[in-house]
């Protein structure tokens, strides 16, 4: 005999909790993605409209080569580090809020 299904009228299962949960997580992801995509999709535009600038030599590399072949990797590490830090903090905050609102219900 399986255990009876849990009741669905507490905080965790409320519509408002799910909405705020998804909205907060998506907002964080979208802001990080926008930073990344801005750089990734902006670089071809710079190559297209400012070829002379992107061909400038920086220590032997062309600027465009240096940005794409070397600097892009650390840039992405920074974004992902910030995302992970914030997303773990976000999850902890969600757990704390649920606990607090459960207390309030009693």
């Amino acid at each position, binding site marked *: 005999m399986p*255990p*009876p299904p849990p009741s669905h009228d507490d905080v965790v299962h409320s519509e408002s909790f799910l909405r705020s949960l998804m909205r907060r997580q998506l907002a964080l992801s979208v802001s990080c993605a926008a930073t990344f995509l801005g750089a990734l999709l902006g670089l071809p535009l710079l190559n297209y409209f400012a070829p002379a600038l992107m*061909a400038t030599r920086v220590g032997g590399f*062309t600027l465009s080569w240096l940005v794409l*072949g070397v600097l892009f990797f650390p840039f*992405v590490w920074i974004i*992902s580090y910030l*995302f992970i830090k914030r*997303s773990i903090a976000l999850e902890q905050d969600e757990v704390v809020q649920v606990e607090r609102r459960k207390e309030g219900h009693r």
Partner: protein
Amino acid sequence: MNAAWPVLLAASTGHVDPWIFTFSFITVVVTIGMGFWSARKSKTASDFFVAGRSVSVGWNASAISGEYLSAASFMGVAGMVMSSGYDALWYPVCYACGYLFLLLFIAGPLRRFGAYTIPDFAEGRFDSPVFRKIAVVFVLFIGFFYTMPQMKGAGTTLAYIFPGMPYWGGVVLVGAVITLNVALGGMKGITLVQAFQYWAKMFAISVPVFVLMAVFGFYNRQIAANVAPGETAARVEAAAIGRKPLVEKAPPDTAWVAPFGPLTTKAVSAAAAALPQPERAAYLAEHQKPYSLLYTYSLIIALVCGTAGLPHILVRFYTNPDGAAAKRTTMWVMILIGIFYVFPPIFGTIGRNLMPDLYTGVGAKGTDKVVLELPTLLAGKSSVLGSILSGITCAGAFAAFMSTFSGLLVSMTGALAHDVYGRMLRPQSNQRERLVAFKFATVLVGGIAVVLGCFVEPLEINFMVGQAFAIAAASYFPLLFMSVWWRGMTVKGAATGMLTGGTCALIAAALTNFSTLALDKGPMGKVFAGFAPLNTFWAHHPLARILCEQPAIWTVPLAILLMIVVSKASATEVPSDVRMKMLVLHAPETLGLKQEYIQEHQAAEATH
């Protein structure tokens, strides 16, 4: 016994460098040895499929990186940078940075949902066993597209180590060895082996690069030896780095070092060549750069979205203990592969300057082998050092195609044994029967991969992997992204979008390859001669060629659009417990919603 094979071949072909042979041989033996050793430790079906879900972050990150860095990364990127220059840099950058998309939108939720494979997720999210069958198909499509370049890597490397060996011989030999290894080891073995292989590859690519740069001039000096647009002469004189004159087939400096070079302008150049001489310059001026920009964007979309939808990578996220660990793992993967990807373009650059003869080679003798052959330049300074370093890069190449091919075999075999056999053909089969099915499926998939691999010698390794990404980007990425973040998805919408997007990308990629193979002067040209008229069509419609060669720019939006439209039209069929599913996907695991969800499901099934 397998170990006797290479020795016999070596004796029959002659001219084998003992150092190169030894390093490669040790890599193969260690890989197989580890597979056998761990085979004794993995007993249950769960061990085989996802390593009992208890792999630590460090191990898992190394293993994912080891599996991901394929022959395309190790050999193909260098070869493509050498042949095409700047535009090829998008490949390593997007291979590494695509993980960010995976991290931001997919890794955490997918792990929380908890399922063995993508088809598991597809079924669980929509409560539809039919959808599982549809989802399984793409594991195989993407997998086979991905195994072809690995097989070319194997054929190229063996043809280099044993100069008398035909290309297909290498493909068959390596395919057989790895298939055997996977059939005996399963995923538990693979995790350990993959992690080891990452570090082997890292060592094999970085050490020779540093030695080569110390002798022939640093990365920036090698780039500076190429004339950029707007410059009258190179910043570093050819003599200073010992640069050799370019051959006729090589692209000129300005096209190579600057964006919008030979890779992205190929279609327009071919179209211009079909025009009468006086019209060519005007045609090129009008079309070359805009089409090139389009090509670049389509390539970026394919690689970034494709990384987030690769089945053999995604299955590994289930081996993390929790969602937070899945995120930390992704972070480490990005660092590990990011560092790696700085090196192959250096090989390509030095290869262009010092080994331009490779531009004239075709198939297994072309630029795809620059990583293997470049260290032999040191032979002039010290013959043993050159051989040892070349041996190290060959060992790295072995590590590359062996690890990726093993990973692909596991995920494709998993799909066949776990989904097709275990769920569709014989749901009542016991664990022992499933293990037998796993081994049988491994041999079947390995055999097909070898046959396909024999056909693709004229195609560039890196380009083929890009196509696998384009198919993943148009099928799994939209499926995962939309089902994780949009509650309104229905099974009809998901299936229509995934099937249409993925099939369009698949057909486009196949047509591109067939027409390229028809141009081959060897035996493949005869096999695919029927597709030769397609090349005439491309010459008149370069835009169609670009959209076929890089389909992501239209297939990914098409898939997402179809998902939205069809889901809206069938809105009544949204799963009834979608709120609970969304909670499981997004709520922190400490709230324990997953267990609750499973209990509810069991209770619901008991009352039915």
